[in-house]
Each structure stands twice: as structure tokens, then as C-alpha cells.
């Protein structure tokens, strides 16, 4: 089965922990995980973020579980890139 190389997730999370700790927790889930988080919207207690994770073989279930454990909710999977080793990226915006 092809491995997941990259995913972009739309997540609603509490303001605490902040995106630094949030990113660190996700990045620690696997070897070579690279995480980028950008904040879309900030409310009094919550913030909507775009969470982008890259790696050789991303574990979606573990990432979803970590998001939930940190109090967040996964709203949608906005981009995904999957393929075998050496296969070029094929990012496809969800629409």
C-alpha cells in the first residue's frame, strides 16, 4: 500500500496548548515528521488552524488521535499526498 507523504488538515483546537507545543507533539509522533501550522482564525477560547504534516510514511490514525488528545477536532482533510518511494508528489486539493 502506498504511504502517505503529506497531508493538510483543517483543525479546530483550544488556544492552549499553543501551536508550538501542538506542532512539537505531532512532530514527535514519527521519525522525520515535519509540521507546519498556520492559524486561520482566533476566537476567545479556540483557534482554527491548517496543519500540514510531511514525512516518509505518515500515520494518519496516530496524528488524528494526537489532535483529539490535545483537545482538537479534525474538521476536514484538505490535501493529501500518497505514493511509493521515489514517486513524485501528487497533491490534490480537496474540493
Amino acid at each position, binding site marked *: 500500500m502506498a504511504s502517505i507523504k503529506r497531508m493538510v488538515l483543517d483543525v479546530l483546537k483550544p488556544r492552549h496548548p499553543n501551536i508550538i*507545543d501542538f506542532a512539537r507533539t505531532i512532530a514527535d509522533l514519527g521519525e522525520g515528521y515535519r509540521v507546519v501550522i498556520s492559524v486561520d482564525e482566533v476566537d476567545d477560547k*479556540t483557534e482554527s488552524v491548517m496543519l500540514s504534516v510531511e514525512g516518509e510514511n505518515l500515520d494518519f490514525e496516530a496524528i488524528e488521535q494526537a489532535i483529539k488528545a*490535545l*483537545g482538537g477536532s479534525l474538521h476536514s482533510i484538505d490535501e493529501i499526498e500518497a505514493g511509493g518511494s521515489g514517486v513524485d508528489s501528487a497533491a490534490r486539493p480537496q474540493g
Partner: protein
Amino acid sequence: MYRQLLLWLHISRSGKIARRYFVVNGFDGALTLLGLNVGFYLSGESNLPVIISACLGAAVALGVSGVSSAYISESAERERELHALEEAMVRDLSDTDHGRASRFAPWWVAAVNGLAPFLFGLLIILPLWLAAKGVALPLGPIETALATALMVLFFLGIVIGRIQGAFWLWSGLRTLIIALVTAILIYILNP
């Protein structure tokens, strides 16, 4: 586990609260023990077992009071905050780090709030206990206990100064002045 605890402290922001409780209730404990020893000094009481029992009783009571009052108030506050966050997130958060942090924070804050006056109290009692065991002290037992209480209060003043970003010596002296005012009030009111 250590990292998990740090995360819960961060989420619940209970590190700062515990620091505040440590100073406030530690100050309460040290000042109470100072007051007790000033009272014993002025009354001429020299029976060390009586003095130690009274001081230990006060330290234990302050410790238990600190634990119970902080736990009750903090757990109510945390529950309210978690419910508010659950409403904002539109989901149950009891099985998340937020839920665990909101259950952990009251115990942590309560422990700090109770241990601060108890441990500072024990430190002030230590010279009395040493004297009762026959250890020679440079001053009399109550005088040494009073000096220890003043040192504890000075130390807490320095901690307050560091939190405020103020000059440590001035903030230490400020708590010493409060201690001296307390001692003078006890002297004035002493029958």
C-alpha cells in the same frame, strides 16, 4: 511522564497559580509561626514541648487548610473552565489532555498551597526541636525560631521581588517590615 506533567501545567496554566499560592500561603505560615513565637517570647513561656506542640499544631492546621481550600476552589474553577471550553469546541474533553490537566491542576495547586506553610512552619520549629533534643544553639530556642521566621519571610520577599522584577533587597526588606509590624502589634496587644 515528566513531559506530560509539563504539558498539563502549561494547558492549565497552574504553574503561575501554584507559584502565587506558594508565596502567599508560605508567607501566611511563616507569619503565623512568627506571631506564635513572639507570643511565647513575650509571655515568658519556656516549656519547649508546649511551644513545639502549639507551633506544630498551627503548621499542620495551615497545611490542611491550604490543601483543602485550594483543592475546593481550584477544582470548581477548573470544572467551570473545562465546561466553557467544551462548549466552544462542541465536544467532550474529559478524555483529552485538557480533561486530565483540569483534574491534575487542583491537586498540584492544593499540594503547593498546603506544603508551603507546613514546610516553612517545620523550618521555623526546627530550632525549638533541636533545643529540646539538647543541641546547643547560638541564641535561645525561641529567639532562634524568631530569627528563622524572619529569614524565611525575607526569602519569600526576595521571591516576590523576582516575580515582580523588583530589586530583591528592597522586596526582602519590605516583608521584614511587615514581620516587624506584626511583632509590634502583638507586643502592643499583649496583656
